[in-house]
């Protein structure tokens, strides 16, 4: 009985800590072992040459990395002192953003003003990078899953099949609404204080991930399916692209807004910055959740 318990403990420990010997030094699996042995015998002559070339490669790469560090540190010596105002970064561009950001953009948070008003085109590209990355992960992990499940019905043990830990489940259920609410607060408050679409979207994505772990895949699939994901991301990106296209149409001078600017500091102010924050937040939230779902199950 005790021996069994011990063995269980050891195996569970083994499960908890992926061992280097298994993953790192990359041992070949059984059906490859014979071939590998043959290979090794054949390669015995080449072995010496390979070892020498490996040594040469290692020393060259260490030298290269050291050279990079030293050259860059030499550059650091000529930088202006840290934390002083005579830094060349402090030029007329940032002065303009700081001085007239409040009048021109209307957002109290001058960083939000900069990334969603003066440089909104940049942020559009950034959101598209996120979307493209998510698409690539879908391509890489989704198709395999079909093939895998077709070949072996056992597949990989899905986490929903594991026995649920009541403490974790209850904790997640209590925490989820708070985290989601906090994410929404960060997004809606992006123009009034630190935060905005990127950070709020990431917090909301993390909340959704927690919700998925607490409720299980089926129940969250009822309100967040692949279709929801596609529609939300598409709507957010196209809204962003259209508003930016409109800004180009009117002369590419910042992001002009037909929405009355409102009083700075009120939640409904700063023109297009609030809607754009919501759009960016949606894209980031969906992407973060999508990454998790794809890695976990190979589907959203």
């Amino acid at each position, binding site marked *: 009985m005790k021996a069994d318990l011990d063995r269980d403990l050891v195996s569970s420990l083994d*499960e*908890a*800590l*992926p*061992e*280097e010997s*298994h*993953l*790192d030094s990359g041992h070949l*699996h*059984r*059906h490859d072992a014979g071939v590998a042995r043959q290979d090794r015998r054949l390669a015995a002559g080449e072995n010496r040459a390979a070892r020498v070339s490996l040594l040469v490669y290692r020393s060259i790469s260490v030298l290269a990395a050291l050279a990079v560090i030293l050259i860059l540190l030499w550059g650091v010596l000529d930088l202006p002192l840290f934390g002083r105002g005579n830094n060349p970064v402090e030029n007329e561009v940032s002065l303009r953003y700081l001085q007239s950001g409040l009048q021109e953009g209307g957002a109290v*948070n001058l*960083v*939000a003003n900069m990334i969603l008003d003066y440089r909104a085109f940049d942020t559009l590209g950034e959101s598209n990078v996120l979307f493209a990355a998510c698409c690539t992960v879908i391509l890489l992990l989704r198709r395999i899953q079909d093939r895998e499940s077709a070949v*072996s019905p*056992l*597949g*990989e*043990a899905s986490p929903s099949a594991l026995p649920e830990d009541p403490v974790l489940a209850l904790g997640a259920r209590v925490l989820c609404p708070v985290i989601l609410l906090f994410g929404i607060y*960060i997004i809606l408050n992006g123009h009034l204080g*630190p*935060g*905005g679409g*990127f*950070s709020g979207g*990431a*917090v909301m*994505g*993390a909340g959704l*991930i927690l919700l998925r772990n607490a409720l299980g895949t089926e129940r969250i699939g009822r309100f967040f399916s692949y279709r929801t994901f596609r529609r939300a991301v598409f709507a957010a990106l196209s809204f962003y692209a259209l508003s930016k296209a409109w800004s180009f149409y009117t002369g590419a001078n910042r992001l002009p807004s037909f929405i009355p600017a409102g009083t700075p500091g009120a939640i409904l102010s700063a023109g297009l910055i609030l809607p754009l924050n919501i759009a960016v937040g949606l894209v980031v939230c969906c992407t*973060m959740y999508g*990454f*998790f779902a794809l*890695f*976990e199950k190979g589907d959203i």
Partner: protein
Amino acid sequence: MDLLMTVLLALLLINAVLVVCVRNLLAACIIFMAQSLIMVLIWILLQAPDLAVTEAAVGTGVSSLLFFLALKKIRAIGRGKEDAAHEG
């Protein structure tokens, strides 16, 4: 602030070296998570609260989660193969 900054920078470098030294892959991922946490504190000291909020959610939360999930998936694939070899 100067002292705290120096300590945090030293921790940052120690962490980066530790990733290479530590044998276990899971431990490496956890060190990566700790690295993100240190970066959060550094952003706050550098007067960039936007960055701190983003790094806390993205670097510490989602990015580390993805590392853990990838490790778990890799282990599951490895174990599945071994089972198949046993049965075959």
